[in-house]
């Protein structure tokens, strides 16, 4: 020890790199120690990370891919897809394209994949399904001498002589397509490949997205208006009372959403409890329309989502000592002004987090509008379910889902820019 001391003080004064007792560089030793710690941490998190990757991230990205996935024409009409790429897109395609089409359809008929191609092409021009199926039935074709395949096709059905039908095939001869995303936004692809607004009678999704955002906005506003004062009250009550009330807030939170919506139907319908009570009291002469319209949807959604505003707001308010308000008042501010200038700004982060949560959950709401609303209240998720379950159009379902996801992400980005993501407190 005595021998080491002077050398250590010498190294300190010369500013040479420090070494440990075994002669190894101290920085190297430290780095290794640090790396070991990190490896241990990674090993602890790994099972969850892998689980999330496999059950959450991978499926989401696979489904997102579905929204631009366009395999039918490329896979089942391979020769045609290849040749039609060099078509000038003005007159009819060349004889080779028609011959390739005949070969492809023959192969597809044998492989029984004709319906898939037919269904895909029918999305762009209705009636294409029957054209494809009719043509495929006649395969293989025997050409008479001097007869071209093009003439034979047109003779079979004059629609083959219409360049529009070939445009559709050419458009879908790529393995990806913006078609579903465009459709979800009421757009369509022009022949030049640029998007344009669909004719008015074909538009639907813009207004559905608008409706989804509008309903979500009002549900969020109502939740804030009802939840903020309640959270404030809970945060300022003595612990015993506030715990009891907290249970009342949480109790519906633990009940299934389906059960709660069903009970709202019981309460709100024409002969429901609320209407009959109001009628018996003589307040109204005729039952109010409370269920199966916008009012019913608002009531039920606000009720279901209220805890998501109350809980983060409560936890933030609980952490604000009452002395802040007292200090502001002792400095001469009116209690209301002090609340607004001192208390409220400190709750913004928690309340914003709650509002964001409510809004994001609202955008994806499905069961409540489906059960308590008219067709006018159905939101985007309803159509996602519709395309997945009823028409088995995964492309549309995935496209609508992707747009919802993008909307959510954008909102989150906007919020974190306004409030600061690090300040966003979920309690």
């Amino acid at each position, binding site marked *: 020890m005595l021998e080491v001391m002077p050398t250590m003080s010498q190294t300190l004064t010369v500013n040479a790199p420090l070494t440990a007792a075994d002669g190894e560089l101290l920085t190297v030793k430290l780095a290794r120690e640090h790396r070991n710690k990190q490896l241990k941490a990674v090993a602890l998190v790994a099972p969850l990370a892998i689980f999330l990757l496999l059950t959450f991230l991978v499926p989401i990205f696979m489904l997102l891919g579905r929204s631009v996935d366009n395999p039918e024409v490329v896979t089942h009409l391979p020769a045609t897809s290849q040749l039609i790429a060099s078509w000038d897109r003005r007159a009819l395609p060349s004889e080779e394209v028609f011959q390739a089409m005949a070969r492809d359809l023959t192969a597809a008929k044998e492989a029984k994949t004709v319906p898939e191609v037919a269904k895909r092409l029918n999305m762009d021009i209705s009636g294409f399904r029957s054209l494809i199926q009719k043509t495929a039935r006649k395969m293989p074709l025997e050409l008479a001498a001097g007869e071209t395949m093009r003439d034979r096709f047109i003779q079979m059905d004059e629609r083959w002589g219409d360049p529009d039908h070939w445009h559709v095939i050419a458009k879908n001869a790529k393995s990806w397509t913006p078609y579903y995303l465009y459709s979800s936004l009421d757009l369509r692809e022009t022949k030049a490949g640029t998007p344009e607004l669909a004719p008015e009678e074909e538009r639907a999704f813009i207004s559905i997205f608008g409706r989804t955002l509008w309903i979500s906005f009002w549900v969020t506003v109502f939740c804030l208006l009802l939840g903020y004062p309640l959270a404030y009250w809970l945060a300022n009550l003595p612990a015993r009372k506030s715990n009891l009330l907290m249970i009342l807030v949480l109790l519906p939170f633990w009940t299934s959403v389906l059960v709660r919506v069903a009970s709202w139907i019981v309460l709100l319908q024409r002969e429901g409890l609320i209407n009959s009570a109001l009628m018996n009291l003589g307040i109204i002469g005729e039952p109010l329309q409370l269920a199966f319209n916008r009012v019913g949807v608002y009531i039920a959604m606000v009720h279901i989502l209220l805890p998501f505003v109350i809980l983060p707001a409560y936890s933030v308010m609980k952490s604000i000592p009452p002395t802040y308000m007292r200090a502001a008042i002792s400095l*001469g501010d009116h209690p209301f002004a002090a609340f607004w200038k001192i208390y409220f700004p400190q709750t913004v982060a928690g309340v914003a987090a709650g509002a964001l949560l409510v809004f994001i959950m609202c955008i994806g709401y499905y069961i409540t509008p489906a059960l308590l609303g008219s067709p006018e209240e159905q939101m985007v998720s309803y159509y996602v379910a519709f395309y997945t379950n009823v028409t088995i159009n995964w492309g549309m379902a995935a496209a609508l889902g992707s747009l919802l996801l993008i909307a959510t992400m954008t909102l989150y980005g906007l919020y974190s820019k306004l409030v600061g993501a690090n300040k966003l407190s979920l309690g």
Partner: protein
Amino acid sequence: MMSEKHTASDTLVSFRGVQKSYDGASLIVKNLDLDIRKGEFLTMLGPSGSGKTTCLMMLAGFETPTHGEIRLGDKLLNHVPPHKRNIGMVFQNYALFPHMTVAENLAYPLTIRKMGKSEITDRVKKALGMVKLDALANRYPGQMSGGQQQRVALARALVFEPQLVLMDEPLGALDKQLREHMQLEIKHIHENLGITVVYVTHDQGEALTMSDRVAVFKDGIIQQIDAANVLYEKPVNSFVANFIGENNTLHGEVVALHDQHCTVRLGNGDTVQAAAVCVGQAGEATSMSIRPERVRLSRHAEACENRLQARLAEFIYFGDHVRLRLDVAGQSGFMVKVPAGELDSSWKVGDKLDIGWMARDIRALDASVYTH
């Protein structure tokens, strides 16, 4: 209990017959009469639950008295809401607004009073200079140390020049060294500005260091209100004697009582002459209080009116002085302070020692079971 006379015009705050109850069953403040003088540093000292903070909160307006009157100057305060009282307040957890910079915090009371921009800037600058934080005007409270935050809180309570400043255990969260430093700083600010300060603490050292007068609270009653040295030298009852400073207690029975003096018999039969302060009549139990530094040892004890034999039980070393723990008249825990230079090296544990004190230095008080 008001030991010194003063005229009514000196009084800034007066409590008259103030009572406070939270549950309707017990009084947390019992019939409080208190006058606080202009320019005075008054400390309310007491254990927790003694009613001192409640008094402060009633003065600030955050609690309303159940009964009685509180006046500021000649204005009745009872029904004035707290934001119209114009009383500065410093809280234990500083209560600096976390979303505002130091300068904004200080400007807050000035903006409410609708002052001009340049005047606000001037005043904020002056207040920051007073607490020596000129460089930190644009920091947020979260970026400052506890001591700095406390200074800002102090500056904020003073910046709008209130005639009265209340402090609710403002140094409780600071470490010992910083606390002692801040005690002096607050005292100097008080002296320089000539404001009236009402200070609440449970730390008797803090109270003695800073205050012009100290009001000792217990069970909602002011036990004694006096200058620090009077409290220490002339406690009026056992609670005050034990709560303020170090104290030796000897239990006994009054055998004779004449005017200012009494004779008390200790458990082992020895008798002691004491100043009769808070005793009833002959035959009653009493606890006598004497400060450790008033006890004289061996040959110094020869001239004393009271002389007893004690047994040396323990030496406790403190560097500048040594404390001797003695057994006196069958009671243990009697402490005597001896300066390091005066210690007789031949003393050892178990020795018999002569001790003594003057009759005026030992005060016969109410019988108590309090220990320090």
